[in-house]
């Protein structure tokens, strides 16, 4: 009898070890797969921005995108990931209520830590870091489209590093972390990063655009001129690829169950520990996407804005993707898309030349997404745990809104101002007129009969 019990216990232990190993492998694979999906975002931005550029600037625009992604990888490895874990409680680097933040905890994410490399005892940090790195690169790509055809590449890379390694990371530490002060004190809720990624990047771009100035020919005699890109089809395909990549982005916003670092043994959680299911995301992403396209179609009839509306519809719903009733997601996405033309006209009247509408799609609609949670989804416990935690509220969302705007706009404006003073922001006038490709790119975009020069 005792032998049978011992054998049974050994069998149970073996089964438990097997199940645990399978779960760990699944969790690791889950986040690993979000990374190539999120790379589609960058494929999309690459195509989108090349299409939105005139023939003379196609490759210069591509170089900017490729380098932003590349520089963000080491920058986020060397400092960005540490910032995220060190600063959730504010600037003091103190430990938060859940004890998963602060200087001591964040030491594990310093670049000389054994956790930040191949390690049999830790199969999670690498894939988490990878997913966060792609979030960071996304912020840079959002800013990238707004500034095409006249920004110096070095100035742009510096701005991309500041945005991707500091600006959005502080916003994420404060509003997208279970120890973040916006969450613990104000119940700020932003499941899909409408504020911490889209708003921050959109308004960072606005700060840069003020110092960068419009492209030559954009505004003449007080009127605004449309500067068409060279390939609308390429732009539309790019936008659709960004949306495909968004599935990876939003997938990476959910915390896999059953691991030591998971919130639950059986159910996906949000980054705040509150429950979510992939079904909830599926319902609401698709409904927001559709609402955004249809809303934009009604108000513009323009395929560029319709596809931007698809993106804008998802962004409008992003903060509450875990909470919306799908028809609500449709209506919120629809409403967001309807706001786009007015927002774009508003910024244009201020003399802002946002070449792809990034401030509108990401900044304005990100803000709408944050406010929508405050208007429609109040009263939810903002964190997991016993009763008494902060709950979602309009006040909390408005506080978050102000913080997100400041995290984006202030560094965007100040850093670009410094770059402008040192002559690192804008290309010379003759290069802008001749075309950036023929000026500095040792390759041609379309060798067979289509010139890269404005003068040819």
């Amino acid at each position, binding site marked *: 009898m005792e032998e049978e019990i011992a054998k049974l216990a050994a069998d149970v232990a073996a089964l438990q070890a097997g199940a645990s190993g399978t779960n760990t492998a699944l969790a690791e694979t889950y986040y690993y797969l979000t990374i190539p999906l999120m790379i589609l975002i960058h494929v999309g931005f690459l195509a989108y921005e090349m299409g939105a550029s005139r023939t003379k600037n196609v490759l210069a625009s591509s170089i900017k995108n490729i380098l932003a992604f590349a520089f963000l990888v080491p920058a986020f490895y060397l400092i960005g990931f540490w910032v995220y874990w060190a600063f959730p409680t504010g600037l003091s680097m103190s430990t938060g209520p859940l004890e998963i933040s602060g200087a001591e905890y964040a030491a594990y994410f310093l670049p000389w830590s054994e956790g930040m490399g191949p390690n049999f005892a830790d199969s999670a940090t690498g894939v988490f870091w990878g997913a966060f790195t792609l979030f960071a690169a996304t912020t840079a790509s959002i800013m990238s489209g707004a500034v095409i055809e006249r920004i110096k590449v070095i100035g742009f890379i510096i701005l991309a590093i500041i945005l991707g390694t500091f600006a959005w990371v502080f916003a994420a530490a404060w509003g997208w972390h279970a120890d973040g002060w916006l969450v613990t004190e104000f119940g700020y809720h932003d499941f899909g990063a409408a504020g911490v990624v889209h708003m921050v990047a959109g308004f960072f771009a606005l700060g840069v655009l003020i110092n960068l100035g419009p492209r030559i020919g954009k505004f003449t005699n007080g009127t605004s001129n449309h500067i068409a890109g060279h390939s609308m089809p390429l732009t539309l395909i790019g936008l659709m690829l960004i949306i495909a990549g968004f599935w990876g982005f939003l997938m990476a916003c959910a915390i896999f169950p059953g691991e030591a670092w998971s919130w639950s043994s059986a159910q996906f959680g949000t980054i705040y520990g509150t429950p979510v299911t992939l079904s909830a995301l599926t319902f609401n992403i698709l409904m927001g996407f559709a609402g955004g396209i249809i809303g934009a179609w009604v108000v513009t009839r323009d395929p560029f804005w319709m596809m931007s509306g698809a993106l804008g519809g998802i962004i409008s719903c992003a903060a509450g993707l875990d909470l919306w*009733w799908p028809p609500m997601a449709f209506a919120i996405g629809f409403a967001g898309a309807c706001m786009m033309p007015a927002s774009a006209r508003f910024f244009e009247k201020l003399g802002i030349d946002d070449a792809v509408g990034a401030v509108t799609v990401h900044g304005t609609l990100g803000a709408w997404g944050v406010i929508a949670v405050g208007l429609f989804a109040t009263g939810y416990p903002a964190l997991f745990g016993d009763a008494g935690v902060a709950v979602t509220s309009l006040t909390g969302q408005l506080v978050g809104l102000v913080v997100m705007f400041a995290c984006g706009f202030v560094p965007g404006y100040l850093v670009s101002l410094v770059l402008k003073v040192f002559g690192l922001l804008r290309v010379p006038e003759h290069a802008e007129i001749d075309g950036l490709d023929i000026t500095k790119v040792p390759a041609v975009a379309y060798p067979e009969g289509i010139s890269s020069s404005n003068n040819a």
Partner: protein
Amino acid sequence: MGSPVESGTWNGFEGAYFVGAGSGMVSVWVWIALGLCVLALVLGAAHESSSYRK
């Protein structure tokens, strides 16, 4: 619009948790979504007819 999580904690909560779950607002939003689709089709038809006339 109200949260169905009334106890102030997610502990022990089961079932539908979306905004308005269990209230009449659920059908209101269904009708709003349907209405927006119909509105889009009506306006789209008017735009298309107008474009062909030009």
